[in-house]
């Protein structure tokens, strides 16, 4: 359900830009999804396929770029990326770690045909 709401928002924004640009159709949509955003790209694609029919975006391809969440070990300085679960530092086993980035969910750019 969460992805339905954000997919509607992507479509609304893409339609708005297509109108501003007086485009015939939107061909490509580039999205960036942070690891911690809670958004699953397969779900966005699923809702997109249903929502984009009969719109200026009907033939648009969605491109997803995953943005990792980075983890810095405060004890040994090691840098690593969050995979699935939050894990202790693989180098020194410390849990004195700080997580940064990976919260974003951004519409980066779109391509339109005039």
């Amino acid at each position, binding site marked *: 359900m969460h992805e339905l709401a954000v997919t509607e928002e992507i479509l609304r924004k893409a339609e708005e830009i297509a109108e501003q*640009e007086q485009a015939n159709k939107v061909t490509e949509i580039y999205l960036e999804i942070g690891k911690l955003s809670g958004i699953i790209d397969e779900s966005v694609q699923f809702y997109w396929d249903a929502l984009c029919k009969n719109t200026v975006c009907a033939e648009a391809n969605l491109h997803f770029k995953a943005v990792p969440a980075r983890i810095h070990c405060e004890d040994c300085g090691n840098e690593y990326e969050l995979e699935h679960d939050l894990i202790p530092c693989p180098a020194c086993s410390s849990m004195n770690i*700080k997580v940064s980035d990976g919260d*974003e969910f951004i*519409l980066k*750019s*779109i391509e339109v045909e005039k």
Partner: protein
Amino acid sequence: MPTKRIEIVQDILTVNDQIAEETNRLLHSKHIFSVNIMASPGAGKTSVILRTLQELTPEIKCAVLEGDTAPVTIDAEKVSGIGIPAIQINTGGDCHLNANLVRKGMQSLDLNALDFILVENVGNLICPASWKLGTDINVVIASIPEGDDKPYKYPNIYRGIQALVLNKVDLKPYVDFNLSYFKAGILALNPDVQFFEVSAKTGEGITDWAAWLKKQIKEVE
């Protein structure tokens, strides 16, 4: 056909966030402090909220917005039962509240008669994290029986919160819950979070948590 690439770089949830900002401005103009309470189902949100409200009233004039996925009024009735205005917000099956639903819910409240609005989000550790509601602070209520691994499995909910209330601490002797492991996970995600241990059943720790909240409320009055 000529094609054109348009750079946008905009957060997808901009519309939601704009409504949230408007709500926050409106509440501040009325000197109202607000909090968004998130938790998994069964963490004891409503029980902690009832205890907290009893500490705050009558000195502070409170109201509650109750988010639920279906039109069940059990939680709202509990709050109304202690004499505090409660508005039920039905998300129509959605797994989280959003800024627009909260704005609509607030229209049913007399904002001139309030100091504090508490929003009880839908019980869920995943989706509510992404949706700002326009409240001043976000709080997660966790509980001992849920296990100490929650920050490791659901990291995003702990990122944008100002306080974590760990409920059901009266169950510590009966549950294998490693408090330092739990805390380490929370602090890795959010080093500035305020941490409170409470039991809605025995009342333990509620005074400290309510006192902290009262201090925040007083600062916007």
